[in-house]
């Protein structure tokens, strides 16, 4: 009997699975956007804010403008749980849902998943967007035509943080001591090359201290920091590690005003749990928090006014990660706009067209103003050689209740960092037998 049930359920699985993959009926005037996202799992809280913002903006474009030039946006989520294997499964599932758009452009917000998808998306000819994370040498579009680490990368961020610290010291860091405290993973290690290159130029003493995943025990590391007594700590933390670091710094009496975190170590999810220990802590960011940005206020009015908001906890609207999700959606919708301007307004864009648009993206100050997004994210101008398009961050500081801006937009040292990307991309091209060239679709 049990076997029969088993066979029956397996048969059902087969039938349903096949059904799930048969392409959904493609509406003639709908732009289907695939969202391989996560709301549960180790970083679920971050995913909820990020993808909540993303979906809210898509909803906003539909409600306010009736879509992009009349093309309505539709989307479907697939839960990856921040797991690489699941991410690949989700990608394969969503890709087949709509044969015209193939999911438009993928934002997976996970370095591991984007690494796994880089080859697949290139073969399938679908754009993969990694805003502020991912395989950073994909900045070189001649080797990675389908991957876009838009806005800025870890290396440029590290360089910008050093610039910020140098500016505080009258332009030099000569003889200073800087600790680089990082999550011992792909994410934490990527900026090391940039930090080392900067330490040679600025002649500061760099001390690298790794923290093992998940980082909820940092006693030894902070003891060492107290002994070394560095001038600054550049902090590359993640998840639970961030609040632990702030509390540990307080315990050993290291001033938080001298710690500068990365943009994944600078959200309300990190500072609020740390309580008073977080006051004065600084972090980089490529998108501004708060509702003073007109676009965020308008989203709240239009989308939540219509009762169609995606956030279960609407008080998080305007948080760093929420606004980051909105920024990512803005980039996607602007790419659709750019694609339609070139290939025909009011038409559904194919992935090839979206790729072209992402490579010829030009979101300047005027465009940001028109969107009501002035100050939300830096201006972006991409090209075949530069899939990053900006490389700017701002430094924000936690005043005990909210993030306030501590600097204007700072651009990392492009002439130092971009050759590092090119060298790394060249090595990849050699391993894979790719001849670097600008894509002609």
């Amino acid at each position, binding site marked *: 009997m049990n*076997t029969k049930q088993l066979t029956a359920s397996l048969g059902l699985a087969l039938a349903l*699975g096949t059904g799930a993959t048969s392409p959904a009926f493609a509406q003639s005037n709908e732009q289907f956007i695939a969202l391989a996202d996560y709301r549960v799992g180790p970083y679920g809280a971050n995913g909820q804010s990020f993808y909540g913002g993303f979906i809210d903006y898509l909803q906003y474009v539909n409600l306010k403008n009736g879509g992009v030039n009349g093309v309505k946006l539709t989307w479907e989520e697939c839960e990856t749980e921040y797991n690489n294997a699941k991410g690949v499964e989700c990608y394969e599932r969503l890709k087949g849902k709509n044969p015209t758009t193939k999911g438009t452009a993928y934002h997976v917000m996970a370095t591991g998943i984007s690494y796994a998808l880089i080859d697949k998306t290139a073969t399938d000819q679908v754009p993969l967007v990694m805003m502020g994370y991912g395989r950073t040498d994909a900045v070189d579009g001649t080797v990675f035509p389908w991957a876009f680490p838009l806005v800025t990368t870890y290396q440029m961020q590290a360089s910008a943080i050093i610039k910020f610290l140098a500016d505080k010291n009258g332009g030099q860091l000569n003889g200073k001591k800087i600790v680089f405290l990082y999550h011992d993973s792909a994410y934490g290690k990527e900026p090391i090359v940039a930090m080392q290159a900067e330490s040679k130029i600025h002649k500061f003493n760099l001390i690298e201290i790794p923290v093992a995943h998940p980082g909820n025990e940092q006693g030894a590391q902070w003891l060492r920091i107290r002994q070394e007594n560095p001038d600054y700590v550049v902090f590359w933390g993640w998840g639970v590690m961030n609040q632990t670091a702030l509390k540990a710094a307080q315990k050993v009496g290291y001033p938080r005003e001298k710690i500068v975190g990365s943009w994944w170590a600078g959200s309300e999810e990190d500072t609020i749990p740390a309580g008073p220990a977080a006051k004065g802590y600084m972090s980089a960011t490529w998108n501004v928090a708060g509702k003073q940005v007109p676009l965020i206020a308008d989203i709240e009015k239009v989308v939540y006014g219509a009762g169609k908001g995606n956030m279960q906890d609407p008080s998080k609207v305007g948080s760093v990660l929420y606004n980051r999700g909105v920024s990512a959606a803005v980039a996607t919708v602007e790419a659709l706009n750019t694609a339609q301007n070139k290939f025909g307004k009011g038409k559904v864009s194919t992935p090839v067209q979206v790729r072209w648009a992402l490579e010829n993206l030009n979101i300047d100050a005027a465009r940001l103003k028109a969107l009501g997004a002035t100050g939300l994210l830096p201006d972006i101008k991409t090209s075949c050689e530069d899939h990053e398009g900006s490389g700017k961050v701002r430094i924000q500081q936690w005043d005990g209740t909210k993030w306030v801006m501590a600097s204007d937009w700072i651009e990392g040292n492009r002439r130092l960092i971009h050759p590092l990307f090119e060298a790394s991309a060249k090595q990849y091209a050699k391993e894979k037998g790719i001849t670097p060239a600008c894509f002609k679709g």
Partner: protein
Amino acid sequence: MFYREAGQFKTSYVADSQIFPIRQDRIAVCSVLVVAFGVLPWIASEYWLTAILVPFLVFSLAALGLNLLTGYAGQLSLGTAAFMAVGAYASYNFQLRIDGMPILASFALGGASAALVGIAFGLPSLRIKGFYLAVATLAAQFFVLWALTKFPWLSNNSSSGVITAQKISVFGVDVDTPVRKYLFVLGVVTLMALVAKNLVRSHIGRAWMAVRDMDVAAEVIGIPLMRVKLLAFAVSSFYCGVAGALYAYCYLGSVEPDGFSLDLSFRILFMIIIGGVGSILGSFLGAAFILLLPILLDSTLPAIATFLHLPFTNATVSHIQLMVFGGLIVFFLIAEPHGLARLWQIAKEKLRIWPFPH
């Protein structure tokens, strides 16, 4: 009735010692193979091939490896994912550093490297067993991941520790389309499953089972414990290593050390527990259960929710999926602690006497 063996006479030793002594089994296995090799590549969609069948086969192979060690030789291990990582990284390095290295040789050498690491971490099994051994193999899990991030040479100095698999071709045929990848993985897995099936029927398998059932008794009847246990670790790690290489080259395309976390080891352990400890078929059934059920729930729950007009969000679906999944595992283990393979065995016995049960 369906499994009537009446009339199937074995008149020679060869006939008596074939892998599947019952004709029905032979027919079933052959037809499964015919469908897998001849039919599925034509009818399965790209999604099925790349996102379901390939990972299913890869995890079946890893589960098979663990099953040889845990199910047959009785040595509990939590280092499966680490051995997979060794296989993946070693294959990558052999392919990268030696010009003109055939991919199959890379995979075999990757498996061999995993086997060596397996032997090293299997050494404690000579002194300790059960849970204690499981904790000792946990060291493999931590050590291998640490080594992969610590020594950048292993990942070709990639700044992030992530490797991307090279393009592969077998005997001049590029393995690049979903169908070819599937057929390649299927070929490797079929071959290795066949070898495993024969291995456990041979004197080696019998020695493993003797050690599993009572190692003192096994030693008394002259089985060299050290050799047998270490061989089990070597063979098992070899299987896991090849599975890791296939996982990197034919499924993900790029792997990072974090991908081979303890979590993956546990998943593979669950596969053999659900599928059936000490059974080749069980490895496949377990992998199917652990991999396919979440996907099935994922695609059916939202539909059910809309049908019942329940306000489900994506996150709720995920949570319900975890609960149902956990519940089913508990149910299965209570209903049949020996796993799905045992259920199949019971079914066969019932079919044999159908329609006259006692």
